[in-house]
Structures are given as C-alpha cells and as structure tokens.
C-alpha cells in the first residue's frame, strides 16, 4: 500500500520535473529569494533561479528520473516503499541543486544527494559489499564536502553574499577567488569521483542498477559538472583553479579509462567509464571558454542518456541473469543465447555502447567532438592547457572505444578461441565453461523495464542532433580514426580469446589499499588511542582523585586510634609547628 503510494509519487514527481522543464523552456531568467535570515552582516537564506542551465538540467533529470522510476517498477521487488521514496528525495535534491541560487540551498541538495546515495547504495544492506560501498561513498563525498563548505565560506565572505547570481568575480580579490574556487573544486572532485577521490564510485555498484543509472546519469556525479558550469564566471576568473581542474580531469579520464579496460564486471566498467566521461566534461570546462562550457553541458546531456541507458541495461542483465559479471555472462553466450533471449536489451545496449564509444552518428560522437573542438580552439591559441586537454581527450576516446568494444564482445559474443576465452576470466577453471546453466527460462525483461531502455536508446542517438549538427569534418575524421584505433586491439584480443589485464590496472593503481593504509588504519589506531587515553589517562586522574580521597579517609581512620595521648601529641606538635611557622613569618 505505502509502496504503491511512493511508486506513484515517484513517477509523478519525475513527470512533474519534466513538466516544469517544459514550462520553463524559453522563459526569461528569473530569481526569487525566500526565508532569509540575517547573521551579523551576512544574509543566510534560500533562493531559486531559472535560466537555460536550469532548464537543461531539469530536463535531463526529469527524463532520467522518469525512466528510472518506471524501470524500477519492474526491477525492484523488496523494500519498494523506502526505495521509491529515497529515489524521489534523491531527484528532489538534485532539482534543488539545479534550481538553487543560494549556495547554502545548493549545499542542502548537494549533501542530501550524498545521504540518499548512501542509503540507496546500501539498499541491499544484507550484502557486505553494499554496506561498505555505501559507507565509502558517503564518507568520501562528505570529506570533499567539507572543502566545499569552506569554499562557500571563502567565496561568500569574499563576495559578501551567498547568492550565486550576485557573486561578481571582479570584486573578489584574486587570492580569495582562487582559494574559494579550489575549495569548491575539492567538493566537486569528491562528488564527481575524480582523482584522487575516485575510489568510491566503482565500489558503489552493489546498489540497485536503476540507482546507479540515476547517480551516474543525472544526479550526484553530474552535480559537480553542473556546479562548475553554474559558477563558470567565477571559476574561469581563476587561472590556477582551471589548471588544477584540467590536470585533475586529464589524469582522471585516462586513469579511469584504463581501469575500465581491466574491469571484469559490466557495472564496474560502466562506473569507471562514468568517471572518465565526467573528466572529459571537466576538461572541457577547464578550458575556461564559452565553447568549453557548452561542450561540457552537451556531453553531460548525451552522457546522461547513454549512461542511463547502459546502467539500465546492466540492470536488466542483473535482473534477468542474476549477475553482470563477465564470468557469469560468459556461460550464457553459447549459441548467442544471451543476445537472443534479451533482444531488446542487446540492441539498446549496443546503441548505448556505441554512443559511449563515440561511433559516428551516435550522440556521444557529436558531444565528444564538441569537446575536442573546444580544446582545439584553445590549443590553437597556443594554450598548453588546450593541448593537454586535446591530447588527453583523444587518447581517452581511443581507450573508450577499446573498453566499450571489449565489454560488448565479451558480454554478448562467444570468443572463437574458446579455450583461451575461458581462461580470460575464470582463472584456468576449464570446467566452468562446460557447465552450461539452464538458460531455458532466460527471457527479456518486462516492458515496464524495456520501455525506458528504448526511450533512452532513442535519446542516445537523437540527442546528438539536438544541438544542431555543426561538425568540423577534420575533427570528425580524427575521432573516427581514434574509434578505429581503439576498436582494433579490442577485437583482435577478443578473437584470440585473450583479455590481458595488467595487475596495476586490475588493482586500479592500488588507490584503495593506499587509502586504507593511510587513512582508515591510522584513524582506527587513533580511535583506540583516544579511548585508551580517556580510560587510562583522564579517567585515571579522576579515579586517582577518588582513590586518594578513599585512602586519605582510611588513613585518618587509622590515626583515630582511640589513644588520647596520640591525639595530644599530634596537637602539641601542631602547636610547635604553628609556633615555628610564627617564628618564620615573624622574622
């Protein structure tokens, strides 16, 4: 009953967002502040605004949220009430971020998203990996949010307002501006899982797939991109921040793409690819040009479509097959069982992967090209930053194609070199491949799940043309070449049944153990130390005081021997002592 209410409310709410996006489309930008309170000479309160960016993001959020909510109707069977409620809250939080004109209002949405993601990732709290993934996600983003909060302080006090629309970079001293934006950047890096705070996102995969779709496509991680776009005037006024952003983005996109190439689980591949794609958006933003911003937002929109689609597809795999691990899926590839049984899923996933890989004609192709073009524009002006971004994005494009094709082939197709293929994922367990699961009941998901797939697949193609096609042929050619460059090794490796996964990549550059050793372990030690200190140092003093009192008391009891002459002696000694004291004081 309650679950039904929340289901309806969830779908209704996301449709409402869409409705608002439609209504606001083309409307003049406007702002409205409310519930302000004065703290000293500062105003702390809430404000909302509407402009193009808001509408764009509202549309993206609305579409993805609708798809996710509808999809979840078929996907989720247990604890639906809390799930739908949280997804709705999650969406609402993102909407808050999007429409906010007050940094604090934005922060509310920003962190509520973190909390919702924590709760949703931990939806299957019976599972250990879900529990730890959820905690990790929350703590890392929370850590970053501290920087974000400080950034708000610095910028807000520097500009003497916490209203985004009133922050004028020209009136803020450069040092404050740089500090503020860098601190904000920390929050962005955490939220969008950029290096060095990237490890939480792949670990967040045990959450329900629709939630992953939501997080990766429209909310949470996209919020970082949105924020920089929202505060673009401020960010672009600080060269240092942009440089840092560019470096972070470039490192991240390659890092994540490499990690994705070695991941053996569909969702993990997709997660790393999200990190990588976000980095591409950030790199575009880091150019500091209007073109860059436009490219980033364009890529954000297309990415939302195809990444949402991909995660929902992975969800179907999980829902229908029971797992999205390549090793499991491999067992269903004999005689093309998987792609035949899950035909719609196969097709839509193909579209999604193509879009992600940047196959010409798909949305990803166009949006990525816009980024490359923006970088080229910048690089042409002799900017090292531009060159950095350009080269990184190109390399990433090739890598992206590599892991997309690898994923596609290894998921749906049986490698011709059977024996080698077995070894690729199953650590030499040759028997595993022979043990074919009962796939007779394998069939495609219900339509309530497939409909969003189809919708998003259409979007993943169509969105590329939404911006009006103004393709630079040169760049188009280059990126096509890059696609091929990435596709060929993937194919040939698959042909040979080989899936080389260097240890470094498989372990994701050892970031997780490093953090564990550098942060978690010391904190645990400190915690034990604190407790021991409370017990054995501070507490010991308190206990010692008590014990001293007791001992002294017992001592006085013992002195009370009942012998009056002892009493008299003590008294006379007291007199003598006081007399001596008198002599000392008197002389």
């Amino acid at each position, binding site marked *: 009953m309650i679950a039904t209410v929340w289901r309806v409310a969830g779908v209704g709410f996301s449709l409402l967002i869409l409705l608002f996006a439609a209504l606001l489309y083309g409307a003049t930008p406007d702002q409205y502040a409310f519930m302000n309170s004065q703290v000293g000479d500062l105003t702390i309160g809430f404000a909302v605004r509407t402009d193009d960016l808001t509408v764009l993001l509202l549309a993206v959020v609305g579409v993805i949220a609708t798809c996710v909510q509808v999809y979840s109707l078929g996907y989720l069977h247990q604890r639906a009430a809390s799930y739908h409620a949280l997804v709705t809250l999650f969406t609402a939080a993102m909407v808050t971020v999007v429409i906010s004109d007050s940094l604090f209002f934005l922060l509310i949405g920003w962190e509520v998203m973190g909390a919702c993601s924590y709760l949703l990732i931990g939806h299957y709290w019976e599972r250990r990996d879900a529990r730890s993934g959820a905690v990790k996600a929350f703590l890392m983003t929370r850590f970053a949010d501290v920087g974000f909060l400080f950034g708000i302080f610095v910028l807000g006090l520097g500009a003497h307002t916490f209203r985004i629309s009133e922050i004028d970079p020209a009136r803020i001293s450069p040092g404050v501006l740089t500090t503020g934006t860098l601190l904000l950047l920390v929050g962005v890096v955490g939220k969008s899982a950029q290096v060095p705070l990237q490890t939480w996102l792949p670990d967040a995969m045990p959450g329900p797939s629709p939630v992953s779709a939501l997080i990766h496509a429209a909310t949470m991680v996209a919020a970082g991109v949105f924020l920089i776009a929202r505060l673009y005037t401020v960010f672009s006024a600080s060269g240092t921040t942009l440089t840092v952003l560019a470096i972070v983005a470039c490192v991240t996109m390659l890092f994540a793409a490499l990690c994705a190439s070695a991941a053996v689980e569909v969702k993990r591949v997709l997660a790393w690819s999200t990190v990588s794609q976000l980095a591409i958006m950030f790199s575009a933003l880091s150019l500091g040009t209007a073109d860059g911003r436009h490219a980033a937002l364009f890529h954000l929109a297309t990415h939302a479509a195809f990444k949402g689609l991909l995660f929902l597809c992975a969800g179907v795999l999980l829902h229908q097959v029971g797992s999205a691990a390549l090793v499991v899926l491999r067992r269903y590839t004999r005689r093309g069982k998987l792609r035949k049984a899950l035909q719609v899923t196969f097709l839509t996933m193909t579209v999604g992967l193509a879009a992600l890989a940047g196959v010409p004609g798909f949305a990803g192709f166009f949006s990525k090209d816009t980024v490359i073009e923006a970088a080229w524009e910048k690089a042409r002006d002799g900017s090292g930053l531009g060159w950095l971004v350009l080269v990184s994005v190109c390399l990433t494009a090739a890598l992206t194609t590599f892991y997309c094709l690898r994923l596609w082939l290894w998921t749906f197709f049986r490698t011709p070199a059977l024996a080698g293929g077995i070894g690729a994922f199953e650590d030499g367990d040759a028997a595993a491949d022979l043990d074919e699961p009962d796939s007779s009941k394998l069939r495609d998901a219900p339509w309530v799940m497939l409909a969003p797939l189809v919708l998003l697949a259409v979007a993943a193609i169509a969105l590329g043309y939404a911006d009006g096609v103004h393709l630079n042929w040169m760049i188009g050619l280059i990126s096509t070449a890059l696609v091929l460059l990435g596709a060929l090794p993937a194919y040939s490796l698959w042909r040979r049944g080989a899936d080389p996964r260097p240890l470094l990549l498989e372990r994701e550059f050892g970031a997780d153990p490093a953090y564990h050793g550098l942060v978690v372990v010391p904190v645990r030690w400190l915690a034990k130390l604190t407790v021991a200190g409370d017990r054995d140092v501070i507490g010991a003093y308190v206990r010692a005081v008590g014990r001293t*009192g007791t001992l002294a*008391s017992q001592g*006085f009891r013992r002195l*009370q021997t009942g012998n*009056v002459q002892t009493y008299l002696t003590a008294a006379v000694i007291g007199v003598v002592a*006081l007399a001596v004291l*008198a002599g000392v*004081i008197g002389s």
Partner: protein
Amino acid sequence: MGGPVTLTWTDWQAIAVPLVLALGAVAVLLVDSFWKSASAELRHTVVTLLTSVVILFGLVFVWARRDDFMPAFCRPAVEGPAQCSLVFEPLTAGLWAVLLIGGLGVVGLSAYRLLAADVPIGEYHFLLLSALTGATVLAGARDLATLVIALEVVSLPSFAMVALRRDRRGSEGAMKAFLVSVLSTAVMLFGISYLYGVTGSLYLSTIANRLNGLDPDLARVAFAAGLFVIVGFGFKIAAVPFHAWLPDTYVGAPIEVTTFLAVVSKSAGVAGLLVLVTSGIAPDGSQLRTVIAILAAVTMTVGNLAALRQVEAVRLLAWSSIGQVGFLLAPLAVDNAQAVVGYLAAYVVVTLGAFGAVAVVQRHRPAGLLTDYRGMVRSEPGLAASLIFFLVVLAGLPPGLAGLFTKFAAFQAVIDGHLGWLAIVMALNVMIGLAVYLRWIAELFRLPADAPFSVDIETPAVTMISLCTAVAAVLSVLPSIMFALAT
C-alpha cells in the same frame, strides 16, 4: 580607682540573660532535688519546661533588645576606647540567638529519650543551663579573663554531661575531651599571660590598640601569644590538628549530649574566636589571620576526607562537623561576622535536626550504622525527607538553600578578603563534603537486606524534627534572616 563598687542598670540589663540562665540552672537543680515525691516523668516534664522557659526568656530578651548597644562592666579608659568586660551589641544578639536556639533544641531533643538512658534529669539540665550561661557570657565577653573563664564554664559542664550516663563509653569520651580541653586551657592561658605581658591589659580593645606599633621582638611574642590563644580555641572547636578527641567523644556520649557538643559547645567556641578576631586581636594583614586561614583549610579538608569512609552515622556527623568548622573558620579568618553568624545559624538548626533524626533511629537500632537507614524513604518518608533535607543543607546544595547561601557568604567573605587559595580549597571541599553526604542519602534510597527502619516516632521527636525542617526551609527561602542576625 576609687568610687563605690556598684553595678549600673546597664550592667544588669546586659547580663540579664546569663544571669537568668544561671539562676534557672540553680532553680532546676533545686526543683529536681527537693521534689523527690513526684514521679520521674513528671519531674522530667517540669524540669524540661522550666529550662525551656528560661531559655525562651533569653530569646525574647534578645529579640526585644536586638538593636541595642549596651557596654557593661566598664571602667574609664586610660587610653583609646572604653574598657568593658561585656558588651551587648547586635553581633552579641545574633550569637546569643544562635546559642539559645541551639540550647532550646537540645532541651527539646532531650525531652523524650533521656530517662531511658540513666541520666539524672536535674543535673543534666543544670549543667546544660550552666554551659549556656558560659556560652552567652563568652559571646559577649570583651576581656581575656572573662573570655577564658566563660569558655571553661562552657567546657566543664559539657564534659560532665558526656559522662553523665556513668558508663564505660561515656567516661572514656569525657576523659578524652577533658584532657584535651585542659591542655588547651593551659596553652591558651599561657598565651594570655604573654599577651598581658606585651600589652599590659586584659581588655581586648586596649590590647588591639596597643598591638599596633610594638617593636618587632615584642610583636613576635605577641604573635606567638595570639597563636596560643587561637590554638586554645582551636582545641575547643576541634580544628585540625586539635580535633582528634571529637569523634571519640561524640560517639561515647549520649546522643543528646553529642548534639549539645555539636551545637552549643561548638558555637560557643566559634563565638569566642569571633569575638577575639572582631575586636581586633588579629587585625587585617596580621599573620594570625593567615594562621586561622590555614587552620580553616586543613580542618575542612581533613574533616571531610575522614568523613568519607565512615560507617556510623554519629561518627560521620562528627567528622562532618569538623569539616563544617573549617568552613566557619574561613570567613572568621577575614573577620566577616555576618557570614560566620549566618553559617552558624544554618549549621545549628540543621545539625539539631540531623541529630534528632539520628536519635530517633538509634533508639531503635542502637548500632547506629549507615546501613540501618536503608529503605527509609519508603518506610519513613517524612523522617527520611527531613534527614535528606538536613544533609543537603549541610552539603550546601539546593534544595538546602540555607546551606548554599551560608557557604556562598563564606566564599564571598573569603574572596573579598583576598584569600584566593582558601577559596579554591573550599571549592574542593564542597565537592568532598557532597560526596560524604551523598553516601548517606544514597543509603536512604537503597533497598535494605532485612526489614527497613519503621517505628512510631514519639511526638516530641516529630515536633523537634518538624520544627528544624520548617526553620531550615524558611531560612532556605528567606536566607536574609540568617545574615540579619549579626547586623
């Protein structure tokens, strides 16, 4: 010199109260001795009433003349202020009120249990009134001869009272108190002899006058002399390290007499010391004040600490009364009569009440252990509530605002007197003291192993304890009454 030896009307008025008390003492003795025909109960009642009337007269007199200033037994001054043996002034009125109320309380407490304890009624009340006579004279005395003799008049009858049950414990307690007291008298007299030698006078005002501007060698002797006098009083009020007789004597004496010692005898000692200090023996800046302050600090600390692990109610009260004396000495060290008298007032009322409650319990549970009080909040809620209230006042915590404000006044006096270190020691002792009383209070709430204490409490006891509770409650709500006593 010269002129006839006469007592003026003022002299008579000023000594009216001690005189009536002394005459009352004799009258009580006579009534008891020569009315053998009456039954013991009847004689007891009559004697009690007579004693009460005498004390009540004193109270009425004090109330009527509370604002007067009556110097008595004066002689023309050779130099400086007039030399008088006794002065009745507001401070005296306050001290007398405290002493007389204490005495009345003890009489009330004695009203219901004494006969059973083999104590001769007439002698008991005679000694009580004699001691009260001494106490009142002591509080008004302004020369050293009167002071020391009055102190003896307080002490000697008290020791007789301690032993009045004429048993092993009583005689041992009396012996200890007596020996310590005699030593203290000797020490004090020795000091007085030096004070006389240095200043050539026994009148406090003259002594105070002449103490200024002594040459250093004489000043040193004067200091030692003053020290000896203070030490003498230290014995009487059981300041540490002259305290050790007190717990033994308290335990050895009949509980009424213990109450008397804790209330009247101790107040008299404090009053005497207060007289000494206020009359200028230890002027501001004198090292004697430092000595008193040191005594205060040591006394309260040792008293409270020793009380911490006591298992008998009376012994706990004995040690805690030592701690309370420390708190009394603190404002004394800075010559703040108002705080001392206020503190004394609250202390007297509450100690009376607490001993009353203990008397009730000990009558039926002679062991007098703290564990006997278990479960009393259930079985005897009224008595338990009163006892808790008294203890809380002694600890100085709400709802015992009387105790809190008197402690506050003591703190205020000490802070105003620039004795920061003493204030810190006092703060520490508030904590230790609270620990002491909480232990007892906790026992009241604990569940007993066997049947909890429950009896039909005798009417006089109920009256006495209720009165003490009521007075303490009134003092808690209107603490200004206490502080008005000395002004």
